[in-house]
């Protein structure tokens, strides 16, 4: 039977990728690195497992390359994490393999090709593409059901083989640990807020609604006014609340891609031609500094009743 090489840095993602391996009809062989390599669950996923105690790309790439040459898989599959995209794009470049990324659906799979869907034009559109095998496939999180752990696995530890790029330091990010993916209501904040302190308006609104606060990429990753796990969008988190209230957010496709699955979207923006109004159910054209205090007051009154 042909094999499918699964490359993952987190244990939860391995089981989803095993489902993808089954879809394309191959025997899963797993390379687990980073936190996945340290997981106590590795021994019970029911596949051949190689583990590698590394977190930066060069040693991961060296291990992937070795395994690729050894087992000649028909597909290399993993999630689209930054490490995976780094090492698997190199593998694709080395062997001129086609590489499908950010896959949201496998439409058709055979032993010679795979047809899948992915976002296009910053997810304002969908592309259906067909690639011959062997190929690299990066799948989105939570698209495929995790396979149930299928019993004992043989776990082999691989030696760490460094490359020319050396890891010389590590800086920790301050994360909030909030789970935006599970939130029922999210207040999203954007660059319409002029300074960090002003976000207290959003937090007050969120508290009244029992909501979490999320953000656009510049607010979280660039200005760091919020922890980076508040970052919503194509390169951040994908959320599915029943209500998303976007405040001072322009509606860039890369942000909206993260909230496509919200049931209701409300937009508060002072520019009536802001793109966000086309992607919202209810729009309020107003200065957030004037409107949020009024909305907060009205919600307090409602609560008091």
């Amino acid at each position, binding site marked *: 039977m042909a094999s499918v090489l699964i490359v993952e840095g987190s244990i939860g993602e391995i089981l989803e990728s095993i489902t993808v391996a089954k879809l394309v009809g191959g025997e899963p062989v797993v390379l687990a690195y980073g936190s996945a390599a340290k997981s106590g669950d590795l021994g019970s996923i029911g596949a051949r497992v190689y583990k590698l105690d590394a977190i930066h790309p060069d040693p991961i790439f060296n291990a992937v390359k070795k395994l690729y040459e050894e087992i000649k898989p028909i597909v290399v599959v993993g999630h689209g994490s930054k490490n995976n995209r*780094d090492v698997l794009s190199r593998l694709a470049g080395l062997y001129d393999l*086609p590489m499908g990324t950010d896959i949201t659906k496998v439409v058709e799979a055979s032993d010679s090709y795979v047809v899948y869907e992915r976002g296009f034009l910053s997810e304002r559109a969908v592309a259906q593409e067909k690639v011959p095998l062997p190929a690299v496939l990066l799948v989105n999180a939570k698209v495929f059901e995790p396979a149930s752990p299928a019993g004992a696995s043989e776990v082999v530890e691989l030696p760490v083989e460094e490359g020319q790029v050396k890891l010389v330091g590590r800086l920790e990010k301050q994360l909030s640990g909030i789970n935006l993916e599970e939130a029922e209501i999210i207040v999203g904040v954007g660059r319409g807020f002029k300074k960090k302190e002003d976000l207290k308006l959003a937090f007050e609104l969120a508290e009244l609604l029992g909501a979490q606060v999320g953000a656009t990429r510049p607010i979280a990753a660039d200005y760091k006014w919020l922890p980076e796990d508040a970052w919503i969008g194509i390169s951040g988190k994908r959320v599915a609340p029943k209500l998303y209230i976007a405040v001072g957010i322009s509606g860039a496709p890369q942000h909206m891609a993260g909230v496509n699955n919200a049931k209701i979207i409300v937009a508060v923006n002072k520019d009536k031609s802001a793109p966000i109004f*086309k992607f919202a159910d209810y729009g309020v054209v107003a200065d957030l500094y004037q409107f949020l205090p009024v909305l907060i007051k009205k919600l307090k009154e409602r609560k008091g009743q």
Partner: protein
Amino acid sequence: MGDIVVLVKPALNPDMVRTKPDGSIDIDAIPLKLDDIDANALELAKQLKSALGGKVVAVLLHKWGSPARRNRDLRMVTQEALARGADEAILVSDEKLADGDQIVTSQVLAEVIKKYVPEYSLVLVAEASIDQTTGQIAGRIAAKLGVPFISYARKVEVADGKVKVERDVEDHIQVLEAPLPAVISVTQEINEPRPPTLIQIRRAAKKPQKKLTASDLGITPQPKKEVVQYRILTVTRKQIIIEGDTLEEIAEKLIQALEKEGVI
């Protein structure tokens, strides 16, 4: 050594998506623009140039449909790259290379670098593009050139023939070091690109530009990926603007609407 290559993509503008009556995407009708994060890469090149002592070369590849229809867009994107700090531009455009996949793109770009900018120290690439957003070109090119690769750079410093990078990973930042030459993919956070000034735009027109075809590079494109279809993602949002004489009235109407929806 010393030159900096910046890969610049004339990308389909996702804010101006055009469709045909059957819901498929009208690629030829969507304007091209200089890709968003390419502006960050050009800004970084401008900052690193003096430390490396070479020139900044923008390398562009036309990808979408017949180049003949895109002359104006391609000229504009090339000019913008020059105005944003490139000293020279090399544009590859050829009917034969149109609609290629990432295998073709990376073969072409690696070949241009090897043949036309052999003295490079750095190749800077955006972490992802706004039209396809596959984020795989930088890694492919590094593998083809056989040089070190560092992705998702938030900070880049060069000194003593080495590059030191702060690389974004989801939950932490890695500090990585590599010998030059190297390929680096940059994030949007790395800097705040300044829009070009009038003088920079005027000077851009006088900078050297080269145009190449597939045969100049000796490449016969053999794409493997096939597009089955492109279709618009239909967003069915209500798009109701809540109006009222006062903000109080608007807030009340909004609360009522959300109660009716059963979401608060």
